[in-house]
């Protein structure tokens, strides 16, 4: 793939032995790429390392070995804070802080310079499909789907190049999940964002359309593109249709 957004080579992630627990291998020899403006979907049973792989991409986890490149740079050569602004993470359970939606959107590290002008805040809310009148609403009073979209708007204020989505719809009811999926797909088209998503939602898998990386216990079981015929790998087919290995 020429000039990918993310390039992961032979990634290894292990946790050291702790009192009463042996060392654990979380990810073993993972190599994968994400095209600019493209998508990658991570699937697998819980504990397979999907979220850990996602967290290696914005360096919330430190790989034990291997290389992760973002926009052509080894991420260990970038300032992690800058990397995380450019590769924004959206969690399964949206984390909103005490205060209004406006205060949540305007949250920033001391000293960081970001454009939080009123028109821009309104624009971001509109971009994620929310009404700008929500700005003064107490963030705790929002529905799950609204909260999730506020966290996406908060990420967009940082002008990211990539979105890392960790099961963004699994805590939502179907109508709200659909709204979040619409938002993500629209952002991808409009902003040309690269997207890496951990998801089991067939709708999101289909709409994102990128290759699937099927992980089991930290190992790649299958890595293939979804085409008109669906997926070819039988284990992956079985997993997606709800039959666990």
């Amino acid at each position, binding site marked *: 793939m020429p000039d990918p957004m993310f390039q992961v080579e032979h990634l290894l992630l292990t946790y050291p032995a702790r009192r009463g627990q042996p060392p654990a291998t979380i990810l073993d020899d993972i190599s994968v790429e994400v095209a600019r403006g493209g998508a990658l979907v991570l699937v697998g049973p819980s504990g397979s390392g999907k979220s850990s792989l996602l967290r290696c991409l914005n360096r919330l986890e430190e790989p034990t070995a291997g290389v992760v490149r973002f926009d052509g740079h080894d991420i260990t050569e970038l300032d*992690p804070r800058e990397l995380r602004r450019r590769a924004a993470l959206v969690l399964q359970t949206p984390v909103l802080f005490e205060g209004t939606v406006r205060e949540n959107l305007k949250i920033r590290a001391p000293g960081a310079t970001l454009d939080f002008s009123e028109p821009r805040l309104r624009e971001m809310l509109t971009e994620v499909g929310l009404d700008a009148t929500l700005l003064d609403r107490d963030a705790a009073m929002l529905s799950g789907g609204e909260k999730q979209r506020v966290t996406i708007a*908060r990420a967009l204020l940082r002008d990211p190049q990539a979105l890392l989505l960790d099961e963004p719809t699994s805590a939502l009811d179907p109508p709200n999940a659909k709204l979040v999926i619409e938002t993500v797909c629209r952002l991808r088209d409009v902003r040309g964002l690269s997207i890496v998503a951990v998801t089991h939602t067939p709708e999101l898998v289909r709409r994102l359309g990128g290759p699937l990386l099927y992980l089991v216990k930290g190992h790649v079981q299958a890595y293939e593109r979804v085409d008109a015929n669906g997926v070819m790998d039988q284990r992956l087919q079985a997993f997606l249709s709800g039959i666990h290995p």
Partner: protein
Amino acid sequence: MGGFGIIDLTWWQLGLALLLVAVVAAISLRQALGLERDLLVGAVRTIGQLYLVGLILAAVFGAARWYWVLLIIVVMAAVATHAAVSRLAKPIPGVYWIAATALTISTAATLTYVIGVVVQPRPWWEPQYVIPIAGMILGNSMTSAALAGDRLQADLFARRDEVEARLALGFSGREAVQPLVRAALRAAMIPTVNGMMTVGVVQLPGMMTGQILAGASPLTAIRYQIVVVFMLAVATALGSLLFVRLAVRRYLTPAHQLRRYLL
């Protein structure tokens, strides 16, 4: 009768005091609390430990050498370090050094000020002043460090997503944990601040009680107690601040990551 009009307790009188423990044992038996064994061990340890301490202190007071006073304080600091660490729910790598550093610095700073500037005994290492004051400072620093450490650990686990959400928004590690550090420090310091509100009203502090029992005038006793209350406030603040600041660094990496496997 001893000096200053104090009644010297005889063995016979101590035996009478032991009857009080028998009352507790009877309650435990009657209510099936299952505490008799611990009570017995506790009573024996109370007698044994305090006698041992009494003998050691008597020897140190008699020898009147600064290095013996220092040694006693070092031993107390080591015990306090161990006690503070063993109260933590989960181990923190290098926690002994963290606790030892926090307790040593907070105690040294507080003790130096109280002995050197406020009380000014002659000689400065006069064991009658230095040892009990150092003991009180250490005890409070230890408790506050343990309280703060406990709260920090619990919060790092319960609020880990919140910390990582801040990291993901471009906060540094230190900035991302700051609200948790603040909560831990408040948890450690609130009992002391609240204690200042009710001191002497709800109950007479132990040291003041002791001085009055030993024949000091209540007005002398309260002056010492005022110094002690302020001294313990700063020991609490310094002990918890140093401990939390040093401990939280163990959970963070230079690349602004939260070491989740430690939680």
